Protein backbone atom coordinates (compact mmCIF):
# COMPACT_ATOMS: atom_id res chain seq x y z
CA UNK A 1 0.00 0.00 0.00
CA UNK A 2 1.24 3.47 -0.94
CA UNK A 3 1.11 6.33 1.54
CA UNK A 4 -2.52 6.87 2.54
CA UNK A 5 -2.22 10.54 1.54
CA UNK A 6 -1.27 9.49 -2.01
CA UNK A 7 -4.42 7.48 -2.52
CA UNK A 8 -7.12 8.58 -4.88
CA UNK A 9 -10.61 8.70 -3.45
CA UNK A 10 -11.51 5.58 -5.45
CA UNK A 11 -8.51 3.69 -4.07
CA UNK A 12 -9.18 4.80 -0.52
CA UNK A 13 -12.81 3.82 -0.90
CA UNK A 14 -11.81 0.28 -1.88
CA UNK A 15 -9.35 -0.06 0.99
CA UNK A 16 -11.89 1.27 3.47
CA UNK A 17 -14.52 -1.10 2.10
CA UNK A 18 -12.10 -4.00 2.36
CA UNK A 19 -11.31 -3.09 5.95
CA UNK A 20 -7.64 -2.62 5.14
CA UNK A 21 -7.74 0.98 6.24
CA UNK A 22 -9.90 2.88 8.70
CA UNK A 23 -11.15 6.41 8.17
CA UNK A 24 -9.41 7.29 11.42
CA UNK A 25 -6.04 6.10 10.08
CA UNK A 26 -6.57 7.86 6.80
CA UNK A 27 -7.69 11.04 8.53
CA UNK A 28 -4.76 11.03 10.94
CA UNK A 29 -2.35 10.67 8.04
CA UNK A 30 -4.12 13.51 6.28
CA UNK A 31 -3.99 15.72 9.38
CA UNK A 32 -0.28 15.06 9.57
CA UNK A 33 0.14 16.08 5.95
CA UNK A 34 -1.96 19.17 6.53
CA UNK A 35 0.30 20.22 9.41
CA UNK A 36 3.46 19.43 7.48
CA UNK A 37 2.20 21.43 4.51
CA UNK A 38 1.37 24.61 6.41
CA UNK A 39 4.00 26.46 4.46
CA UNK A 40 1.68 26.43 1.46
CA UNK A 41 -0.94 28.32 3.45
CA UNK A 42 -3.59 26.19 1.75
CA UNK A 43 -5.88 26.18 4.78
CA UNK A 44 -7.30 29.19 6.57
CA UNK A 45 -8.84 27.07 9.33
CA UNK A 46 -7.77 23.53 10.19
CA UNK A 47 -10.37 21.43 11.98
CA UNK A 48 -8.49 18.31 13.12
CA UNK A 49 -10.78 17.58 16.10
CA UNK A 50 -13.86 17.74 13.92
CA UNK A 51 -12.09 15.56 11.35
CA UNK A 52 -11.25 12.88 13.90
CA UNK A 53 -14.78 12.89 15.32
CA UNK A 54 -16.22 12.56 11.85
CA UNK A 55 -13.74 9.81 10.95
CA UNK A 56 -14.62 7.81 14.03
CA UNK A 57 -18.31 8.25 13.37
CA UNK A 58 -17.70 7.07 9.82
CA UNK A 59 -15.84 3.97 11.00
CA UNK A 60 -18.75 3.19 13.30
CA UNK A 61 -21.24 3.59 10.48
CA UNK A 62 -19.17 1.33 8.28
CA UNK A 63 -18.99 -1.37 10.90
CA UNK A 64 -22.76 -1.01 11.15
CA UNK A 65 -22.99 -1.81 7.47
CA UNK A 66 -23.64 1.73 6.25
CA UNK A 67 -21.46 3.52 3.74
CA UNK A 68 -22.16 6.66 1.75
CA UNK A 69 -20.54 7.74 -1.49
CA UNK A 70 -17.70 9.51 0.34
CA UNK A 71 -17.71 7.36 3.44
CA UNK A 72 -14.67 8.11 5.55
CA UNK A 73 -12.93 10.24 2.89
CA UNK A 74 -11.10 13.29 4.30
CA UNK A 75 -11.74 16.37 2.20
CA UNK A 76 -11.07 20.08 2.35
CA UNK A 77 -13.77 22.71 2.05
CA UNK A 78 -13.22 26.01 0.32
CA UNK A 79 -13.76 28.73 2.89
CA UNK A 80 -16.65 30.13 0.89
CA UNK A 81 -19.00 27.36 2.06
CA UNK A 82 -20.76 28.14 5.32
CA UNK A 83 -20.04 25.40 7.84
CA UNK A 84 -22.01 25.24 11.06
CA UNK A 85 -19.94 26.18 14.09
CA UNK A 86 -16.75 26.68 12.05
CA UNK A 87 -15.56 30.18 11.11
CA UNK A 88 -16.24 31.04 7.48
CA UNK A 89 -14.18 33.91 6.12
CA UNK A 90 -14.53 34.05 2.32
CA UNK A 91 -10.89 35.11 2.56
CA UNK A 92 -12.01 38.52 3.73
CA UNK A 93 -11.38 40.60 6.80
CA UNK A 94 -14.96 41.79 6.68
CA UNK A 95 -16.21 38.39 7.85
CA UNK A 96 -13.87 38.52 10.85
CA UNK A 97 -15.38 36.44 13.65
CA UNK A 98 -18.35 35.19 11.66
CA UNK A 99 -19.45 31.68 12.64
CA UNK A 100 -22.38 30.32 10.63
CA UNK A 101 -25.20 28.60 12.49
CA UNK A 102 -26.19 26.73 9.35
CA UNK A 103 -24.52 24.29 6.97
CA UNK A 104 -24.34 24.84 3.22
CA UNK A 105 -26.34 22.33 1.22
CA UNK A 106 -23.28 21.05 -0.65
CA UNK A 107 -21.25 20.36 2.50
CA UNK A 108 -24.31 18.93 4.24
CA UNK A 109 -24.80 16.59 1.25
CA UNK A 110 -21.15 15.51 1.39
CA UNK A 111 -21.23 14.92 5.14
CA UNK A 112 -24.43 12.94 4.74
CA UNK A 113 -22.46 10.74 2.30
CA UNK A 114 -19.77 10.18 4.92
CA UNK A 115 -17.15 12.81 4.02
CA UNK A 116 -14.74 13.97 6.73
CA UNK A 117 -13.88 17.69 6.91
CA UNK A 118 -10.20 18.51 7.40
CA UNK A 119 -10.59 22.27 7.33
CA UNK A 120 -11.42 25.35 5.32
CA UNK A 121 -9.17 26.25 2.42
CA UNK A 122 -7.72 29.55 1.37
CA UNK A 123 -9.14 31.51 -1.53
CA UNK A 124 -9.08 34.88 -3.20
CA UNK A 125 -11.16 37.35 -1.22
CA UNK A 126 -14.82 36.65 -1.99
CA UNK A 127 -13.55 34.35 -4.78
CA UNK A 128 -12.36 37.38 -6.77
CA UNK A 129 -9.01 36.56 -8.28
CA UNK A 130 -7.01 34.20 -10.42
CA UNK A 131 -3.89 33.80 -8.30
CA UNK A 132 -4.99 33.54 -4.69
CA UNK A 133 -3.09 36.75 -4.02
CA UNK A 134 -6.09 38.68 -2.68
CA UNK A 135 -6.84 36.62 0.44
CA UNK A 136 -6.81 38.56 3.72
CA UNK A 137 -5.19 35.42 5.19
CA UNK A 138 -2.20 35.65 2.88
CA UNK A 139 -1.47 33.99 -0.43
CA UNK A 140 -1.80 30.24 -0.84
CA UNK A 141 1.20 28.71 -2.59
CA UNK A 142 1.36 26.20 -5.40
CA UNK A 143 3.29 23.04 -4.43
CA UNK A 144 4.78 22.94 -7.94
CA UNK A 145 8.07 24.61 -8.83
CA UNK A 146 9.55 25.18 -12.25
CA UNK A 147 12.63 23.12 -12.98
CA UNK A 148 15.66 25.02 -11.80
CA UNK A 149 13.63 27.88 -10.33
CA UNK A 150 12.77 27.61 -6.67
CA UNK A 151 10.65 30.72 -6.51
CA UNK A 152 7.07 30.27 -5.37
CA UNK A 153 4.32 29.87 -7.92
CA UNK A 154 0.71 30.92 -7.49
CA UNK A 155 -1.82 28.10 -7.26
CA UNK A 156 -4.31 30.05 -9.36
CA UNK A 157 -7.59 31.25 -8.02
CA UNK A 158 -9.92 31.66 -6.58
CA UNK A 159 -10.01 28.05 -5.31
CA UNK A 160 -6.23 28.17 -4.91
CA UNK A 161 -6.14 26.74 -1.41
CA UNK A 162 -8.25 23.76 -2.48
CA UNK A 163 -6.05 23.13 -5.53
CA UNK A 164 -2.88 23.46 -3.47
CA UNK A 165 -4.25 21.14 -0.76
CA UNK A 166 -5.24 18.44 -3.24
CA UNK A 167 -2.02 18.69 -5.27
CA UNK A 168 0.07 18.82 -2.08
CA UNK A 169 -1.54 15.64 -0.69
CA UNK A 170 -3.18 17.59 2.13
CA UNK A 171 -6.64 16.32 1.20
CA UNK A 172 -7.95 13.57 -1.06
CA UNK A 173 -10.33 16.02 -2.63
CA UNK A 174 -11.70 19.48 -2.05
CA UNK A 175 -14.66 21.61 -2.90
CA UNK A 176 -14.23 24.65 -5.07
CA UNK A 177 -16.48 27.25 -6.58
CA UNK A 178 -16.22 28.57 -10.09
CA UNK A 179 -17.63 31.91 -11.22
CA UNK A 180 -15.32 32.57 -14.16
CA UNK A 181 -12.80 29.74 -13.92
CA UNK A 182 -12.12 29.55 -10.20
CA UNK A 183 -12.11 25.73 -10.14
CA UNK A 184 -10.63 24.96 -13.55
CA UNK A 185 -7.82 27.52 -13.62
CA UNK A 186 -6.29 26.59 -10.23
CA UNK A 187 -6.78 22.90 -11.06
CA UNK A 188 -4.76 23.42 -14.24
CA UNK A 189 -2.08 25.44 -12.37
CA UNK A 190 -1.74 22.72 -9.72
CA UNK A 191 -1.99 19.65 -11.93
CA UNK A 192 -5.29 18.36 -10.53
CA UNK A 193 -8.74 17.71 -11.94
CA UNK A 194 -11.39 20.39 -11.46
CA UNK A 195 -15.01 20.27 -12.55
CA UNK A 196 -17.41 23.17 -12.79
CA UNK A 197 -20.82 21.52 -13.12
CA UNK A 198 -23.76 22.92 -15.03
CA UNK A 199 -25.24 25.99 -13.35
CA UNK A 200 -27.95 24.67 -11.07
CA UNK A 201 -26.44 21.22 -10.60
CA UNK A 202 -25.10 22.00 -7.12
CA UNK A 203 -27.02 24.14 -4.70
CA UNK A 204 -25.71 27.63 -3.97
CA UNK A 205 -27.52 27.71 -0.60
CA UNK A 206 -25.01 28.47 2.11
CA UNK A 207 -22.22 29.41 -0.29
CA UNK A 208 -21.09 33.01 0.14
CA UNK A 209 -22.28 34.66 -3.07
CA UNK A 210 -19.95 36.40 -5.52
CA UNK A 211 -21.96 36.58 -8.76
CA UNK A 212 -25.22 34.73 -8.35
CA UNK A 213 -25.94 33.97 -12.00
CA UNK A 214 -22.45 32.50 -12.51
CA UNK A 215 -21.38 30.89 -9.22
CA UNK A 216 -21.29 27.13 -9.18
CA UNK A 217 -19.73 24.70 -6.70
CA UNK A 218 -17.77 21.70 -7.89
CA UNK A 219 -15.14 19.12 -7.01
CA UNK A 220 -11.35 19.24 -7.20
CA UNK A 221 -9.53 15.92 -7.02
CA UNK A 222 -6.57 13.94 -8.27
CA UNK A 223 -8.43 11.90 -10.88
CA UNK A 224 -11.40 12.28 -13.17
CA UNK A 225 -13.07 9.34 -11.43
CA UNK A 226 -12.62 11.06 -8.05
CA UNK A 227 -14.24 14.20 -9.41
CA UNK A 228 -17.17 12.08 -10.59
CA UNK A 229 -17.51 10.44 -7.17
CA UNK A 230 -17.42 13.80 -5.40
CA UNK A 231 -19.89 15.43 -7.77
CA UNK A 232 -22.32 12.57 -7.12
CA UNK A 233 -22.19 13.42 -3.42
CA UNK A 234 -22.33 17.22 -3.83
CA UNK A 235 -25.07 17.57 -6.44
CA UNK A 236 -28.81 17.43 -6.20
CA UNK A 237 -31.93 19.49 -6.28
CA UNK A 238 -32.32 21.90 -3.37
CA UNK A 239 -35.72 23.47 -2.72
CA UNK A 240 -33.93 26.27 -0.83
CA UNK A 241 -32.16 27.52 -3.97
CA UNK A 242 -34.54 28.90 -6.60
CA UNK A 243 -31.88 28.35 -9.26
CA UNK A 244 -31.09 24.75 -8.33
CA UNK A 245 -32.13 22.34 -11.08
CA UNK A 246 -34.86 19.86 -10.33
CA UNK A 247 -33.07 17.10 -12.24
CA UNK A 248 -32.11 13.57 -11.31
CA UNK A 249 -28.45 13.12 -10.40
CA UNK A 250 -27.06 10.32 -12.55
CA UNK A 251 -24.30 7.95 -11.47
CA UNK A 252 -21.44 9.96 -12.95
CA UNK A 253 -18.95 7.16 -12.36
CA UNK A 254 -20.92 4.49 -14.16
CA UNK A 255 -19.95 5.17 -17.80
CA UNK A 256 -16.75 7.01 -17.12
CA UNK A 257 -14.65 4.38 -18.92
CA UNK A 258 -17.03 3.96 -21.83
CA UNK A 259 -14.63 5.83 -24.11
CA UNK A 260 -15.13 8.43 -26.82
CA UNK A 261 -15.57 6.22 -29.83
CA UNK A 262 -18.01 7.80 -32.27
CA UNK A 263 -18.13 11.10 -30.37
CA UNK A 264 -17.75 14.39 -32.21
CA UNK A 265 -15.43 16.77 -30.43
CA UNK A 266 -15.62 20.46 -31.27
CA UNK A 267 -12.39 22.45 -31.64
CA UNK A 268 -13.28 26.15 -31.51
CA UNK A 269 -11.10 28.18 -33.81
CA UNK A 270 -11.57 31.34 -31.70
CA UNK A 271 -9.60 29.73 -28.87
CA UNK A 272 -6.40 30.13 -30.88
CA UNK A 273 -5.41 33.37 -29.24
CA UNK A 274 -2.39 35.54 -29.93
CA UNK A 275 0.18 35.48 -27.21
CA UNK A 276 -0.61 32.03 -25.91
CA UNK A 277 2.60 29.99 -25.66
CA UNK A 278 3.22 27.48 -28.41
CA UNK A 279 3.48 24.62 -25.96
CA UNK A 280 -0.13 25.20 -24.92
CA UNK A 281 -1.22 25.09 -28.57
CA UNK A 282 0.82 21.93 -28.97
CA UNK A 283 -0.76 20.31 -25.92
CA UNK A 284 -4.18 21.14 -27.29
CA UNK A 285 -3.28 19.48 -30.63
CA UNK A 286 -2.00 16.46 -28.71
CA UNK A 287 -5.32 16.30 -26.85
CA UNK A 288 -7.20 16.27 -30.15
CA UNK A 289 -4.98 13.48 -31.42
CA UNK A 290 -5.53 11.39 -28.24
CA UNK A 291 -9.26 11.58 -28.69
CA UNK A 292 -9.05 10.80 -32.41
CA UNK A 293 -6.86 7.80 -31.63
CA UNK A 294 -9.64 6.54 -29.37
CA UNK A 295 -12.24 6.83 -32.11
CA UNK A 296 -13.61 10.36 -31.74
CA UNK A 297 -13.95 12.76 -34.64
CA UNK A 298 -12.52 16.25 -34.24
CA UNK A 299 -14.67 18.96 -35.81
CA UNK A 300 -13.60 22.55 -36.17
CA UNK A 301 -16.34 24.83 -34.88
CA UNK A 302 -16.91 28.54 -34.49
CA UNK A 303 -17.79 30.26 -31.22
CA UNK A 304 -17.70 33.71 -32.78
CA UNK A 305 -18.41 35.79 -29.67
CA UNK A 306 -15.66 34.23 -27.57
CA UNK A 307 -13.55 37.38 -27.42
CA UNK A 308 -16.44 39.31 -25.87
CA UNK A 309 -16.88 36.86 -23.03
CA UNK A 310 -14.29 38.41 -20.71
CA UNK A 311 -15.49 42.01 -21.06
CA UNK A 312 -19.11 40.85 -20.67
CA UNK A 313 -18.09 38.90 -17.58
CA UNK A 314 -16.33 41.93 -16.11
CA UNK A 315 -19.60 43.83 -16.29
CA UNK A 316 -22.03 41.13 -15.16
CA UNK A 317 -19.98 39.63 -12.32
CA UNK A 318 -19.02 42.93 -10.64
CA UNK A 319 -22.60 44.20 -11.00
CA UNK A 320 -23.99 41.20 -9.16
CA UNK A 321 -21.11 41.29 -6.67
CA UNK A 322 -21.67 44.96 -5.84
CA UNK A 323 -25.18 44.03 -4.74
CA UNK A 324 -24.30 40.69 -3.12
CA UNK A 325 -21.59 42.32 -1.02
CA UNK A 326 -23.85 45.13 0.23
CA UNK A 327 -24.83 42.95 3.19
CA UNK A 328 -21.33 43.28 4.67
CA UNK A 329 -22.01 46.51 6.51
CA UNK A 330 -20.88 45.99 10.10
CA UNK A 331 -24.44 45.69 11.42
CA UNK A 332 -25.16 41.97 11.67
CA UNK A 333 -21.87 40.08 11.69
CA UNK A 334 -18.19 40.31 10.95
CA UNK A 335 -15.99 43.38 11.14
CA UNK A 336 -17.32 46.69 12.34
CA UNK A 337 -15.28 49.87 12.55
CA UNK A 338 -17.12 51.88 15.18
CA UNK A 339 -18.16 55.47 14.65
CA UNK A 340 -20.85 57.77 16.05
CA UNK A 341 -22.05 58.36 12.55
CA UNK A 342 -23.82 55.64 10.61
CA UNK A 343 -22.40 56.54 7.22
CA UNK A 344 -18.89 56.74 8.61
CA UNK A 345 -19.38 53.35 10.28
CA UNK A 346 -20.46 51.86 6.95
CA UNK A 347 -17.73 53.52 4.93
CA UNK A 348 -14.88 52.70 7.31
CA UNK A 349 -16.06 49.14 7.90
CA UNK A 350 -16.19 48.46 4.18
CA UNK A 351 -13.00 50.39 3.40
CA UNK A 352 -11.03 48.44 6.00
CA UNK A 353 -12.91 45.17 5.61
CA UNK A 354 -12.53 44.76 1.86
CA UNK A 355 -9.26 44.42 -0.02
CA UNK A 356 -8.27 46.34 -3.15
CA UNK A 357 -9.58 43.87 -5.75
CA UNK A 358 -12.94 43.51 -4.05
CA UNK A 359 -13.30 47.29 -3.83
CA UNK A 360 -12.37 47.63 -7.48
CA UNK A 361 -15.08 45.20 -8.52
CA UNK A 362 -17.72 46.57 -6.17
CA UNK A 363 -17.09 50.04 -7.59
CA UNK A 364 -17.16 48.85 -11.20
CA UNK A 365 -20.38 47.00 -10.40
CA UNK A 366 -22.02 50.01 -8.76
CA UNK A 367 -20.98 52.13 -11.73
CA UNK A 368 -22.35 49.87 -14.48
CA UNK A 369 -25.70 49.62 -12.68
CA UNK A 370 -25.97 53.31 -11.91
CA UNK A 371 -28.46 55.64 -13.50
CA UNK A 372 -27.56 56.43 -17.07
CA UNK A 373 -25.09 53.56 -17.48
CA UNK A 374 -27.28 50.50 -16.95
CA UNK A 375 -28.28 50.11 -20.60
CA UNK A 376 -24.86 50.80 -22.02
CA UNK A 377 -23.06 48.37 -19.75
CA UNK A 378 -25.17 45.92 -17.81
CA UNK A 379 -27.96 45.40 -20.32
CA UNK A 380 -25.50 45.31 -23.20
CA UNK A 381 -23.35 42.71 -21.41
CA UNK A 382 -26.38 40.51 -20.72
CA UNK A 383 -27.28 40.67 -24.41
CA UNK A 384 -23.76 39.75 -25.41
CA UNK A 385 -24.02 36.93 -22.92
CA UNK A 386 -27.12 35.70 -24.73
CA UNK A 387 -25.14 35.65 -27.97
CA UNK A 388 -22.35 33.66 -26.34
CA UNK A 389 -24.87 31.12 -25.06
CA UNK A 390 -26.32 30.97 -28.60
CA UNK A 391 -22.87 30.20 -30.00
CA UNK A 392 -22.68 27.11 -27.81
CA UNK A 393 -26.26 26.13 -28.61
CA UNK A 394 -25.34 26.25 -32.26
CA UNK A 395 -22.26 24.10 -31.62
CA UNK A 396 -24.29 21.38 -29.93
CA UNK A 397 -26.04 20.78 -33.25
CA UNK A 398 -22.84 19.23 -34.55
CA UNK A 399 -20.68 18.17 -31.60
CA UNK A 400 -21.00 16.24 -28.31
CA UNK A 401 -18.29 18.06 -26.38
CA UNK A 402 -15.71 20.80 -26.92
CA UNK A 403 -11.98 20.63 -26.21
CA UNK A 404 -9.92 23.74 -25.43
CA UNK A 405 -6.86 24.66 -23.40
CA UNK A 406 -7.73 25.36 -19.76
CA UNK A 407 -5.50 28.42 -19.28
CA UNK A 408 -3.41 30.69 -21.47
CA UNK A 409 -0.32 30.06 -19.31
CA UNK A 410 1.10 27.84 -16.61
CA UNK A 411 1.30 28.99 -12.99
CA UNK A 412 3.14 32.29 -12.80
CA UNK A 413 5.46 33.47 -10.08
CA UNK A 414 3.86 34.78 -6.92
CA UNK A 415 6.34 37.68 -6.88
CA UNK A 416 5.63 38.60 -10.48
CA UNK A 417 1.90 38.58 -11.14
CA UNK A 418 0.37 40.35 -14.17
CA UNK A 419 0.81 44.06 -13.68
CA UNK A 420 -2.63 45.54 -14.30
CA UNK A 421 -6.12 44.22 -13.55
CA UNK A 422 -7.03 43.54 -17.16
CA UNK A 423 -3.89 41.46 -17.72
CA UNK A 424 -4.80 39.43 -14.63
CA UNK A 425 -8.35 39.00 -15.89
CA UNK A 426 -7.01 37.40 -19.13
CA UNK A 427 -6.18 34.28 -17.09
CA UNK A 428 -9.82 33.28 -17.39
CA UNK A 429 -10.09 33.81 -21.12
CA UNK A 430 -10.85 30.12 -21.86
CA UNK A 431 -13.01 29.41 -18.85
CA UNK A 432 -15.30 32.46 -18.62
CA UNK A 433 -17.48 31.74 -21.70
CA UNK A 434 -18.51 28.45 -20.09
CA UNK A 435 -19.81 30.23 -16.97
CA UNK A 436 -21.67 32.81 -19.01
CA UNK A 437 -23.45 29.99 -20.84
CA UNK A 438 -23.99 27.99 -17.62
CA UNK A 439 -22.35 24.86 -19.05
CA UNK A 440 -20.24 22.13 -17.40
CA UNK A 441 -16.47 22.43 -17.83
CA UNK A 442 -13.70 20.12 -16.72
CA UNK A 443 -10.01 20.84 -16.40
CA UNK A 444 -7.75 17.78 -16.72
CA UNK A 445 -3.99 17.80 -16.21
CA UNK A 446 -2.55 16.75 -19.56
CA UNK A 447 1.13 17.65 -19.65
CA UNK A 448 3.97 19.82 -18.45
CA UNK A 449 5.62 22.93 -19.75
CA UNK A 450 9.22 22.78 -20.93
CA UNK A 451 10.24 23.70 -17.39
CA UNK A 452 8.02 21.16 -15.68
CA UNK A 453 4.88 23.04 -14.65
CA UNK A 454 1.49 21.39 -15.15
CA UNK A 455 -0.90 22.35 -17.94
CA UNK A 456 -4.54 21.42 -18.31
CA UNK A 457 -7.03 20.87 -21.07
CA UNK A 458 -10.65 21.87 -20.74
CA UNK A 459 -13.63 19.76 -21.80
CA UNK A 460 -16.94 21.59 -22.16
CA UNK A 461 -20.29 19.84 -22.43
CA UNK A 462 -23.97 20.41 -22.93
CA UNK A 463 -26.05 21.57 -19.99
CA UNK A 464 -26.48 18.75 -17.46
CA UNK A 465 -24.30 16.42 -19.52
CA UNK A 466 -21.47 16.14 -17.01
CA UNK A 467 -21.40 12.41 -17.77
CA UNK A 468 -20.06 13.01 -21.29
CA UNK A 469 -17.63 15.65 -20.05
CA UNK A 470 -16.24 13.18 -17.52
CA UNK A 471 -15.97 10.43 -20.13
CA UNK A 472 -13.98 12.66 -22.47
CA UNK A 473 -11.88 13.85 -19.54
CA UNK A 474 -11.17 10.26 -18.53
CA UNK A 475 -10.07 9.46 -22.10
CA UNK A 476 -7.61 12.37 -22.04
CA UNK A 477 -6.39 11.41 -18.58
CA UNK A 478 -5.78 7.84 -19.70
CA UNK A 479 -3.93 8.93 -22.83
CA UNK A 480 -1.90 11.62 -21.08
CA UNK A 481 -0.78 9.27 -18.33
CA UNK A 482 -0.10 12.35 -16.22
CA UNK A 483 1.82 11.08 -13.22
CA UNK A 484 4.16 13.95 -12.44
CA UNK A 485 4.15 15.12 -8.84
CA UNK A 486 4.84 18.49 -7.30
CA UNK A 487 8.17 18.86 -5.59
CA UNK A 488 7.40 21.66 -3.20
CA UNK A 489 5.59 21.72 0.05
Amino acid at each position, binding site marked *: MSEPTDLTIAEARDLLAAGELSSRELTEAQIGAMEAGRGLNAYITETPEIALDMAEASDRRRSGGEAGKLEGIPVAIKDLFCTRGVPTTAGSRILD*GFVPFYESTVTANMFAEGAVMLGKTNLDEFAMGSANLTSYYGAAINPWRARGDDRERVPGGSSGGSASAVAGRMALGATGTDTGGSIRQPAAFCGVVGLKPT*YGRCSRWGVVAFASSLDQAGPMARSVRDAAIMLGAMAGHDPRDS*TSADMPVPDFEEDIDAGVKGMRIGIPREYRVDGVPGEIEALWRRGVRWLEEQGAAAVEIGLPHTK*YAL*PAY*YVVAPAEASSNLARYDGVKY*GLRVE*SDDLTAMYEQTRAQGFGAEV*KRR*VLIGAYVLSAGYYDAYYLKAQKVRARIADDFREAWRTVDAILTPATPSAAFRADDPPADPVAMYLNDIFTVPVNLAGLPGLSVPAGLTHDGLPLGLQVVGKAFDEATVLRVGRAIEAAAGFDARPAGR
Partner: protein
Amino acid sequence: MSLDEATVARIARLARIATTDEERERLAGELSGILDWVEQLGDVDTESVEPMTGAIEMPLKSREDTVTDGGVAEDIARNAPRYAQGFLVVPKTVE
Protein backbone atom coordinates in the same frame (compact mmCIF):
# COMPACT_ATOMS: atom_id res chain seq x y z
CA MET B 1 -14.73 56.19 -21.50
CA SER B 2 -12.67 57.87 -18.86
CA LEU B 3 -13.82 57.91 -15.33
CA ASP B 4 -12.76 60.91 -13.25
CA GLU B 5 -12.09 61.19 -9.55
CA ALA B 6 -15.38 62.93 -8.87
CA THR B 7 -17.20 59.96 -10.38
CA VAL B 8 -15.12 57.58 -8.30
CA ALA B 9 -16.12 59.59 -5.25
CA ARG B 10 -19.77 59.39 -6.22
CA ILE B 11 -19.82 55.62 -6.73
CA ALA B 12 -17.66 55.01 -3.66
CA ARG B 13 -20.27 56.92 -1.73
CA LEU B 14 -23.06 54.83 -3.30
CA ALA B 15 -21.14 51.69 -2.36
CA ARG B 16 -20.34 53.02 1.14
CA ILE B 17 -16.60 52.60 0.82
CA ALA B 18 -14.38 55.35 2.23
CA THR B 19 -11.61 56.38 -0.15
CA THR B 20 -8.61 58.68 0.20
CA ASP B 21 -7.55 61.20 -2.47
CA GLU B 22 -4.75 58.88 -3.39
CA GLU B 23 -7.05 55.88 -3.77
CA ARG B 24 -9.48 57.84 -5.88
CA GLU B 25 -6.68 58.87 -8.19
CA ARG B 26 -5.48 55.28 -8.55
CA LEU B 27 -9.01 53.90 -8.90
CA ALA B 28 -9.91 56.45 -11.58
CA GLY B 29 -7.04 55.10 -13.67
CA GLU B 30 -7.77 51.43 -13.00
CA LEU B 31 -11.49 51.64 -13.48
CA SER B 32 -11.08 53.68 -16.65
CA GLY B 33 -8.75 51.01 -17.96
CA ILE B 34 -11.30 48.30 -17.28
CA LEU B 35 -14.15 50.31 -18.78
CA ASP B 36 -12.12 51.16 -21.89
CA TRP B 37 -11.51 47.46 -22.37
CA VAL B 38 -15.21 46.73 -21.82
CA GLU B 39 -16.10 49.24 -24.55
CA GLN B 40 -15.48 46.56 -27.18
CA LEU B 41 -18.89 45.08 -26.28
CA GLY B 42 -20.23 47.87 -28.46
CA ASP B 43 -18.93 45.97 -31.50
CA VAL B 44 -21.40 43.15 -30.95
CA ASP B 45 -24.70 43.38 -32.78
CA THR B 46 -27.33 42.83 -30.12
CA GLU B 47 -30.25 44.23 -32.05
CA SER B 48 -33.39 42.28 -31.04
CA VAL B 49 -31.42 40.09 -28.60
CA GLU B 50 -33.14 39.43 -25.27
CA PRO B 51 -30.79 40.03 -22.35
CA MET B 52 -29.83 36.86 -20.51
CA THR B 53 -30.35 37.12 -16.78
CA GLY B 54 -30.02 33.53 -15.65
CA ALA B 55 -27.54 30.92 -16.77
CA ILE B 56 -30.12 28.23 -17.42
CA GLU B 57 -33.84 28.57 -18.13
CA MET B 58 -35.73 27.08 -15.24
CA PRO B 59 -39.15 27.34 -13.68
CA LEU B 60 -39.45 29.39 -10.51
CA LYS B 61 -39.59 27.34 -7.34
CA SER B 62 -41.91 28.16 -4.52
CA ARG B 63 -42.36 27.45 -0.85
CA GLU B 64 -45.49 26.56 1.09
CA ASP B 65 -47.14 29.27 3.17
CA THR B 66 -46.18 27.62 6.43
CA VAL B 67 -43.90 28.81 9.19
CA THR B 68 -40.77 26.67 9.05
CA ASP B 69 -38.06 29.06 10.21
CA GLY B 70 -37.23 31.69 12.79
CA GLY B 71 -36.21 31.44 16.41
CA VAL B 72 -32.57 32.16 15.67
CA ALA B 73 -32.33 35.43 17.62
CA GLU B 74 -29.57 33.98 19.82
CA ASP B 75 -27.51 32.94 16.82
CA ILE B 76 -27.94 36.38 15.32
CA ALA B 77 -26.99 37.96 18.66
CA ARG B 78 -23.85 35.82 18.90
CA ASN B 79 -22.60 37.06 15.52
CA ALA B 80 -23.59 40.70 15.91
CA PRO B 81 -20.89 43.31 16.58
CA ARG B 82 -23.33 45.14 18.88
CA TYR B 83 -26.51 43.68 20.29
CA ALA B 84 -28.57 44.80 23.27
CA GLN B 85 -31.95 43.93 24.77
CA GLY B 86 -32.83 41.75 21.80
CA PHE B 87 -31.91 44.34 19.16
CA LEU B 88 -29.08 44.99 16.73
CA VAL B 89 -27.51 48.29 17.73
CA VAL B 90 -26.26 50.89 15.25
CA PRO B 91 -25.23 54.55 15.41
CA LYS B 92 -28.26 56.83 15.70
CA THR B 93 -30.09 57.07 12.39
CA VAL B 94 -33.01 59.34 13.09
CA GLU B 95 -34.59 61.40 10.33
